[in-house]
């Protein structure tokens, strides 16, 4: 299998309303050929609606969906040539594993012999060789997931869609399958749109992540960019842990928290109120009384909570009565810190390059 059949997807002005609710509000999205793109958002954000619209199960009110150059928005689902994996797997319980996987081939009129070869090939890809004659009820959750996947790609669709396919699995298996899915994607090279509400899963698997909220795309970017440069409060909050500090701006456009100057200039002068986003693991504990410098910003506070969690440890540091920083540190090789005393006065540093500034909500 190769990626010559993969197609880019181009979505323009996709709109869907349920009564007064905007499930999708004029969504524009370009998905590259062979890309693994994840639609990430909380439940009710519109991510599944968007996926179902691409599959053809959800008819939008308006919009354009192109696979390559072909307009698909009016095409019925069975003519879209799209592989689909559902959250519930939706395997056919009245058919064996082979019959399930062979179903799309039979519909396409493939000769029995060729179909059998393709089914075996697909079974091998998902590491289920030899289980073809099993009934669906004889499979474990992870095996069912693999059958659903094999059935979705066996007919070599140009696009593969997955709706939270791993959410029914337990944590360990889920993490294993994330890696395996990614490998299969690399092997097939098919354009893949993946829906999840699990930000960790999105970060692990995707080439790019499209964060969606209230029917609108908030940010579309690589996992690193989404994590390191969230565009607004929603993205910063939804992906990863973070503490947000409201900043004040002086006459010269400098942004500061208390006495500490965070940024010497305002990133966008049309926005007046800014916040500082701090990822807990980007903070580090300082020995003695280091001060804010060109290299780093220093906060001082009292330890109000300390939790040892194995490979990392976690502390809450109160800067004043209302502001509490979360700090995460490694406990591995070279880390001098093994424990913190409650009530101890500490200094924590944040490197200048780790400063993330976002506009205050409602200022955009």
């Amino acid at each position, binding site marked *: 299998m190769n990626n010559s059949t993969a197609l880019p997807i181009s979505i323009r002005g996709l709109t869907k309303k349920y009564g007064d609710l905007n499930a999708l509000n004029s969504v524009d999205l370009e998905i590259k050929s062979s890309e693994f793109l994840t639609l990430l958002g909380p439940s009710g954000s519109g991510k599944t609606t968007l996926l179902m619209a691409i*599959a*053809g*199960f959800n008819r939008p009110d308006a919009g354009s969906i192109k696979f390559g150059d072909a307009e698909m928005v009016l095409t*019925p*689902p*069975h003519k*879209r*040539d*799209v*592989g*689909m994996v*559902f959250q*519930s797997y*939706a*395997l*056919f*319980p*009245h058919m064996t594993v082979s019959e399930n996987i062979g*179903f*799309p081939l039979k*519909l*396409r009129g493939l000769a029995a012999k060729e179909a059998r070869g393709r089914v075996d090939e697909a079974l091998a890809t998902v590491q289920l060789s030899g289980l073809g004659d099993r009934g669906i009820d004889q499979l474990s959750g992870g095996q069912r997931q693999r059958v659903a996947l094999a*059935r*979705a790609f066996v*007919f070599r669709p140009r696009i593969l*869609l997955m709706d939270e396919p791993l959410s029914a699995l337990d944590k360990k298996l889920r993490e294993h399958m994330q890696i395996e899915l990614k490998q299969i994607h690399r092997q097939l090279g098919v354009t893949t749109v993946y829906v999840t509400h699990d930000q960790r899963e999105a970060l692990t698997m995707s080439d790019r992540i499209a964060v969606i909220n209230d029917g609108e795309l908030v940010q579309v970017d690589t996992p690193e960019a989404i994590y390191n440069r969230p565009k607004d409060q929603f993205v910063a909050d939804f992906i990863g842990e973070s503490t947000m500090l409201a900043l004040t701006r002086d006459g010269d456009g400098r942004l500061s928290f208390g006495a500490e100057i965070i940024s010497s200039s305002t990133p966008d002068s049309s926005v007046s109120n800014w916040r500082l986003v701090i990822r807990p693991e980007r903070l580090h504990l300082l020995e003695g009384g280091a001060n804010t410098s060109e290299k780093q910003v220093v906060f001082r506070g009292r330890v109000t909570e300390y939790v040892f969690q194995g490979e990392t440890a976690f502390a809450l540091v109160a800067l004043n009565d209302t502001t509490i920083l979360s700090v995460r540190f490694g406990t591995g090789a070279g880390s001098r810190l093994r424990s913190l005393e409650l009530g101890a006065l500490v200094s924590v540093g944040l490197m200048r390059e780790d400063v993330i500034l976002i506009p205050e909500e409602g200022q955009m």
Partner: protein
Amino acid sequence: MSWWTSPATETQISHGDRFWLYVLVAIIMLFLVIPTLIVIPMSFSDSQYLEFPPEQWSLRWYGEYFDSTKWMRATVTSLQVGFLTLLVATPLGTMAAYALFVSGHRFAKSIFLLLITPMIVPVILIAIGAFYAFGRMGINNSITGLVLAHTAMATPLVMIVITAALRSYDLNQERVARSLGATRIKAFFTVTLPQIKFSVVTAGLLSFLTSFDEVIIAIFVSGGNNATLTKHMFAALRDFIDPTIAAISTIMVGISTALLLAIQFVGSKKK
């Protein structure tokens, strides 16, 4: 006497302390079951008067039944109408139930309510209404009229059985089938129908039973050569106690039980 003194409830009442409940329940159970079963031994009595237990056993009343053209004709009518009702009501109800279940149309709920009105409107009203309407259409005393009326009565039952089946079915399977290249109709017949077929069979058997047991509408709209078994039985019950009815009743209980067992069997095979 360990069972007698052992606790029977969470509030630690012993079986002995609530033995009265068991006696009471046993009596009520007898009240429920005996009238259905007692006609069976009585039908094998030789006597003109129904007695229990019969002094002499015989098949006399079965003979009367099988030798009577009137009863035989009525039996054929009832079986025929029941079978035709099954054939018409099952697809009609299944189609409607599927359509209303899948469609998110704002009228879907209203149409569903409209279609189950035959279960809400008192049957006597349906009977005289149908009698009046069929009179105008000239289909009183015909098989057509009876099948039409019984289909109207059975369709809501079919819809309820099929809707319940669809509720416990993952409609995403049909979606997957469509994404894999099946048209909607093909997806229904290859994926959905094989999985709800037991409910479809159950619904069909219930349609048959509904028609076969139906009395009131049959009293009004059936007659002449096409009078149903139930119509003749009702007339016979009003006039005098004819032991032939015991034989017919036994046969009817047999048919109902057979169908019920068939439904149970179908249901257990599902698992």
